[in-house]
């Protein structure tokens, strides 16, 4: 039998694939931005002097990082409607779009990974800087916002971007909720038209090219932003 490859199948599937790809990009961008912001806050909480806060956040981050993303996706898909109902006082679970559920899931999930990256970044800033901030009469949060976090961000930028590439690939898992992300739309067509070879190989090829280019770009950036200490 061998591999059948009919380019025409791809040409016909093109509009749907493009739509799926743009969905994947949107979800990646929103989750990356939300995840980095929340992750930085989590890192600050973990490193703060409040013991109960850092212990709670630490336990949460470690727990989330030891369960599979798939399980987390299912958890939030079913849980978020109940949480919203509880928050708004509604009597029944609030129906939300799968997109909202996925954005919430990925922000909360990726924030735990971004948290560990930012924590390492913050700890890599020499302690003299924190002391210098104190000597200038700045409080903890002021020092963090104006001195420590911007430097940590710069040091960790390549790692944050590498994690974003991982996130870009992880987004493909939302297809288990029958969502039409890039892989989901290809999977849908593959099963509808019975053309698995064309669809899966095309998806793999596009991901391969995108991720190779992105990781090259990250490497180039790494050389440019490196701080010489």
């Amino acid at each position, binding site marked *: *039998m*061998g*591999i*059948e490859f009919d380019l025409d199948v791809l040409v016909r599937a093109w509009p749907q694939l493009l739509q799926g790809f743009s969905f994947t990009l949107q979800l990646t961008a929103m989750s990356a931005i939300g995840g980095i912001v929340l992750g930085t806050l989590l890192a600050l909480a973990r490193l703060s002097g409040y013991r109960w806060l850092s212990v709670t956040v630490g336990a949460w981050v470690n*727990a989330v990082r*030891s*369960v*599979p*993303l*798939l*399980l987390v996706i*299912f*958890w939030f898909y*079913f*849980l978020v409607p*109940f949480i919203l*109902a*509880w928050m708004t006082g509604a*009597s*029944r*679970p609030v129906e939300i779009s799968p997109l909202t559920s996925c954005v919430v899931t990925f922000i909360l999930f990726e924030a735990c990974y971004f948290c560990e990256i930012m924590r390492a970044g913050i700890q890599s800033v020499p302690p003299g800087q924190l002391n210098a901030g104190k000597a200038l009469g700045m409080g903890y949060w002021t020092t963090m916002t104006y001195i420590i976090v911007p430097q940590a961000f710069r040091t960790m930028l390549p790692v944050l971007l590498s994690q974003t590439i991982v996130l870009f*690939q*992880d987004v*493909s*898992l939302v*297809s*288990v909720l029958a969502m039409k992300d890039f*892989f989901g739309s290809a*999977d849908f067509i*593959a099963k509808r038209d019975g053309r*698995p*070879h064309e669809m*899966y*190989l095309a*998806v*793999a090829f596009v*991901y*391969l090219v*995108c*991720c*190779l280019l992105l*990781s090259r770009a990250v490497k180039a950036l790494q050389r440019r932003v490196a701080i010489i200490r």
Partner: protein
Amino acid sequence: MYNWNWSVLWATTADGTSTYLGTLFLGLRWTLVVGLSAWAIALIIGTAVGIARTFPSGFMARAAAVYVEGLRSIPLIVQMFLWFYVAPDLLPLDAANAVKAWDKYNIAAAIICLAFFTSARVAEQVRAGIQAIPSGQKQAAHALGMQTAQAYRHVLVPVAFRKILPALTNEFVNIIKNSSVAFTIAVVELMAATRSMQEMTFQVFEAFTAATLIYLSVNLLVVKLMDLIERRLEVPGLSIRKAR
């Protein structure tokens, strides 16, 4: 709002063969079978590729680099589908039909997929471990009359493995988490068992809580076990372990 019913875990399943909690543990068994087999293969391939990555130049080093970059650039679920739906058709017709007719091919595909996927990550750790060894050690091995292969076998690889054990623990935990993706090709591992329990009983959160606790305990166990191995293999004076 939500009717909690924890006793559902002890309720008998529809086919009457076991309890729902029992089906989760049956799922866990497949998670472990897939995860451990893939891990064993990944360690072997990953070590070989990682060693090739440290060669100064030549075809092997370049091939190893392409291997690692390629496997790291395609999402796991896509690789899983390629192995399951596309790979059999690369074989001659008879063999392809035999593979497709084999009812355990999904499990084999999951193991092969996870093994290759993880081997690329193991290779990167092995390479980093070998490159972190001061070059004096390799030169000392050569000075003692060892060939390059012997230097790798007796000096570089053993030292590198001890250095990268914590990173390997991380990959081990990852492979157990990643084995959940095998549920998309109908392997009845823990994730699939959880989903089917949820669909049969409608007790979503009991099923998910149980699965979460099982994953957490397995991963904790792996971390503790690796910690023990790390202590046993520690080279006195060379330890990078932090004082506790």
